C-alpha cells in the first residue's frame, strides 16, 4: 500500500513456478500491475545440438524438452522426419503410437491437475493423480523400459513390438480411470473455494488467445475449437471418434474443465484403439542411414500442452541443416502477462499452473 510499487522476484527458486521460471512482478500492495517472465535458466541449446547429430541421434533429445510428455514430443519429431523422408509408418505402428500418446496426454494432464491443485492449496489431489500416473508410467516401462524420457518411437515406425499384455493393461487402466476421474471431480469441481479461486481468474478472450498464438487446452478453453488431431489428423486419429471440449469464458476454471474432459476423451480414444490393433509390420522401410532429400518440412501435432511443431531443413546430408521447434509452453507463456494483470499474487500461481508449462520446453 506504500506509495512505491513493490517489485518482487518470484523464482527461479520458488515452490510454484514449476521449475526455474523467474517472474518479476510489479505489485501495488498485493495487486499485480505488471509482470515479466525471465526464462533461460534451463537452456540447453537443443536446436543447435540437432545440427550436429544425425536424424536418429537427435530423437532422444526431444524427449528432454517436455519431459512430462516425452512420448508426444517424440511422436512429433518422428512424424516430421518421416514427412521429410516421404515415408509413412505402417498402420500397426500408428495405432500403437496413438495409444501411447493418448496415455501420455492423460499422464501429463494428471501431473498438471495435481500440481495446479497443490498451488491453489488442495494437497490431496496430487497424490491421487500420481497414483494413476504411476499406472501409465508402468505401461511405458513395460513397453520400452523407460518411464519418463521414453524415446518410444523410431523414425519410420516403432522401436519395439508391443508386449503381450499391452491391450489388457491399457484396458484395465481405462476401466479404473473412469471412477478415479470422478473422484478428482468430487474433490474440486463443485468446491466453493476452488470455484472462487479459479472462476474469473486469468481470463483470456478468444481474440487474445489467437493473437498470442496460444494453442492446446488454453486456446480451447477460450472457446476456439482448434485441435490438430481433428484439423490435420496424424498417427491414427482419423479412425477414432472423440469430442473436442471447448470452454466459454477462457478463465482458469474453464481450462480446468477442458483438461478434465480431455482426459475422458483420451480414455475413450485408448479404448477404441485397443479394440482393434491391426497386425503387420511395425517399421516402414527406412535405411540404416537416413539421408532425406534436400528440402524443408513443418509438422505439428497436438501435444498435451498444445501444438508442438518441428520445422526441419535438410541439405541432403545425414544431419539436419536446421531444426526449429515450436514449443507450446513457450508460446502459451507469452499470454501470461495479459492474464495476470489486475489480479492478486495468489492468482499468479494459479495462472502459472493453469498455463501448464514445462520449463524444459520453454527454455529448450
Amino acid at each position, binding site marked *: 500500500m506504500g506509495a512505491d510499487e513493490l517489485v518482487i522476484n518470484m523464482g527461479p527458486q520458488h515452490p510454484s513456478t514449476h521449475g526455474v521460471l523467474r517472474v518479476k512482478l510489479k505489485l501495488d500492495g498485493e495487486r499485480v*500491475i505488471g509482470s515479466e517472465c525471465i526464462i533461460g535458466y534451463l537452456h540447453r541449446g537443443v536446436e543447435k545440438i540437432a545440427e550436429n547429430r544425425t536424424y536418429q541421434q537427435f530423437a532422444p533429445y526431444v524427449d528432454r524438452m517436455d519431459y512430462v510428455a516425452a512420448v508426444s514430443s517424440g511422436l512429433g519429431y518422428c512424424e516430421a522426419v518421416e514427412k521429410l523422408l516421404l515415408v509413412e509408418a505402417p498402420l500397426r505402428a500408428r495405432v500403437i503410437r496413438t495409444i501411447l500418446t493418448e496415455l501420455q496426454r492423460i499422464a501429463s494432464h494428471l501431473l498438471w491437475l495435481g500440481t495446479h491443485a497443490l498451488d491453489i492449496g488442495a494437497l490431496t489431489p496430487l497424490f491421487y493423480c500420481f497414483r494413476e500416473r504411476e499406472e501409465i508410467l508402468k505401461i511405458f516401462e513395460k513397453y520400452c523400459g523407460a518411464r519418463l524420457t521414453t524415446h518410444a518411437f523410431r523414425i519410420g515406425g516403432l522401436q519395439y513390438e508391443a508386449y503381450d499384455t499391452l491391450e489388457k493393461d491399457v484396458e484395465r487402466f481405462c476401466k479404473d480411470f473412469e471412477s478415479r476421474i470422478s473422484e478428482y471431480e468430487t474433490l474440486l469441481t463443485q468446491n466453493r473455494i476452488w470455484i472462487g*479461486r479459479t472462476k474469473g481468474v486469468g481470463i483470456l478472450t478468444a481474440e487474445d488467445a489467437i493473437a498470442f498464438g496460444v494453442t492446446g487446452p488454453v486456446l480451447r478453453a477460450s472457446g476456439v475449437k482448434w485441435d490438430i488431431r481433428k484439423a490435420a489428423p496424424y498417427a491414427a486419429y482419423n479412425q477414432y471418434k472423440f469430442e473436442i471440449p471447448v470452454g466459454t469464458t477462457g478463465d482458469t476454471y474453464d481450462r480446468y474443465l477442458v483438461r478434465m474432459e480431455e482426459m475422458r476423451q483420451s480414455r475413450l480414444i485408448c479404448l477404441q484403439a485397443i479394440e482393434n490393433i491391426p497386425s503387420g509390420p511395425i517399421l516402414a522401410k527406412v535405411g540404416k542411414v537416413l539421408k532425406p532429400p534436400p528440402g524443408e518440412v513443418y509438422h505439428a501435432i497436438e501435444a498435451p500442452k498444445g501444438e508442438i511443431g518441428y520445422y526441419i531443413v535438410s541439405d541432403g546430408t545425414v544431419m539436419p541443416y536446421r531444426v526449429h521447434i515450436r514449443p507450446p509452453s513457450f508460446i502459451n507463456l507469452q499470454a501470461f502477462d*495479459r492474464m495476470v494483470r489486475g489480479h492478486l499474487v495468489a492468482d499468479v500461481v494459479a495462472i502459472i499452473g493453469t498455463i501448464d508449462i514445462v520449463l524444459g520446453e520453454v527454455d529448450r
Partner: protein
Amino acid sequence: MNATLQATLEFLKLYWAPLLCGVAVVAILPLIVGYIVLVERKIMADMQARLGPMRVGPHGLLQPIADAVKLLIKEDIIPEHADKLVFWLAPVLSVGAGLLSLAGLAIGPAFQIAQDINIGILFVVGISALGIFGIVLGGWASNSHYSLMGALRSSAQLVSYETAAGMALVSALLFTGTLNVKSIVEAQSKEGIWFVLLAPVAFFTYLVASIAETNRAPFDLPEAESELVAGYMTEFSGFRWSLYFLAEYTNMIVVASVATTLFLGGWLRPFAGVSWLNFLDFVPPLVLIAIGAYCVLRVTKQPTRVQQLFMLAVAGLCFVVALVLAAPVVLPVIKPSLREAVAPFYAGIHGGFWFIFKVSLYIYFFMWLRFTIPRYRFDQLMRLGWHFLIPLSIINVLLVGVALIAGAYFQLHGWGLLLVTTPAAILALVAAFLILAIEKQHDARQEQTAPSDFYAG
C-alpha cells in the same frame, strides 16, 4: 535477608503445584506437539493413499524425535540485513504467548495452572492473541518481501477474525454469566447440556474463526507455500523455525481447548448427568485395551527385534493407561465402600481423558479440512471474515440474548432451553443465508462492471 528467604519459602509452599504444572507443560509440550505432527502426517498419508513416515521406529513412531534432533543441530542462519534483535525475539514471543495462554486452561477439575483467575477464558484468548507480534515482527525483521507480505497478511487476518471469535465466545458466555473456566464447565454440567447444542451458530463461527486465527488451511495464507514460499517463516531455519512451528501447534491446542471448554463440555463425559449411561465410563479403558491388544498381535509381523520390543512397549503403555483409567470405575463396582475414596481420582483422570479426547477431535477436524480443501485467496478470506462471519456472529449474540431472556421468562432449564435457542439458531441461519444472498447479488452487480478493469494496463 532472612525475611526474603522466609517469603520465598512461603511462596513456594503456596504455589508449588501450579509451578510444577507449568514446568511440566513447558517440558512436555514440545514432545506432544511433535507427536501431533506425526499423527497429522499419518492422517494425511492415510487420506492420500500412501503410508507416511515409516522409517524411524516402527510406523515412524520415533520420527518426531529425529525431527527435533535434526532441527536443533541445523545451522542457524540470520539473513545479512535482518534486524538481529527482533529476529531473535520474534519466535520466542510467538511461542511464549502460546505457552503462557495454556496457563489459564483447566484440563480437569483438578488440573489448572493459574488457579481460578477471575478473567479465566479472557486470559487465554487475550494472551494467545499476543502471538501475532511474533509473526509480524519476525516477518518484518527478516528483511524479505515474502516475509513482510506474510506478516502483513497475518496481522490483518488475525485482527479481523479475532472479532468474530470474540463474538462467538460472548454468545456462549451469555449462558454462564462467568468468565471463570471451571465455572463455565460446571454450568454445563448443571444444565446437563453442552453449549454447542444451545449455541450451534456460535460454535460454527468460532470453529471457522479459530482455523483462521491459527493460520491453518484453508486460511493458511500467511504461510501459503505456493505463493509466499513460507510467508513470515521464509528466512527462519533450524531452532528458530521450530519455535514458530511449536507456537502454531500450541495455538491449535489452545483454540481447541477453548472450544472444548466453552462449547463441548470441557472435561465432562457425554451425558455426564444421566446415571443409566454411566457404563460409558468403561469405554475409554476398553478402547485402550483393544489398541494394546492390536499392538501385541502386530508384534510378530515386525521385521526386527527392536521394532518388536517397541511394539510391546507401546502395548504396555496402552495397558498401563487403561489400568489407570479403569481403576476408579472398576474399584467401586468391586467394593462399593471405596466409592467415596476414588471419587476425586475418577474426576481427575476421566476428566482429563475426555478433555484431551475432545481436543484431539477438534484438531483432527482441522487436519481433515486441511487435506480436503483448497486455499482461500486473501481478498476472499477478508471478505468472508468481514462480510459474513462478523455480521453473523453479531446477529447471533443478539438472538442468543433474546432467547435467554425468553428462557428466563418461561423458566426453562437444561434441555428445555433448546425450545428457545433452536428458533434463535434457525433465525441466525436464515440471516446467514440472507447475508450470502446479498453478497451474491452484490457480486453479480460488480461482475458486470469489473472485467474491463482487469485489462486496464
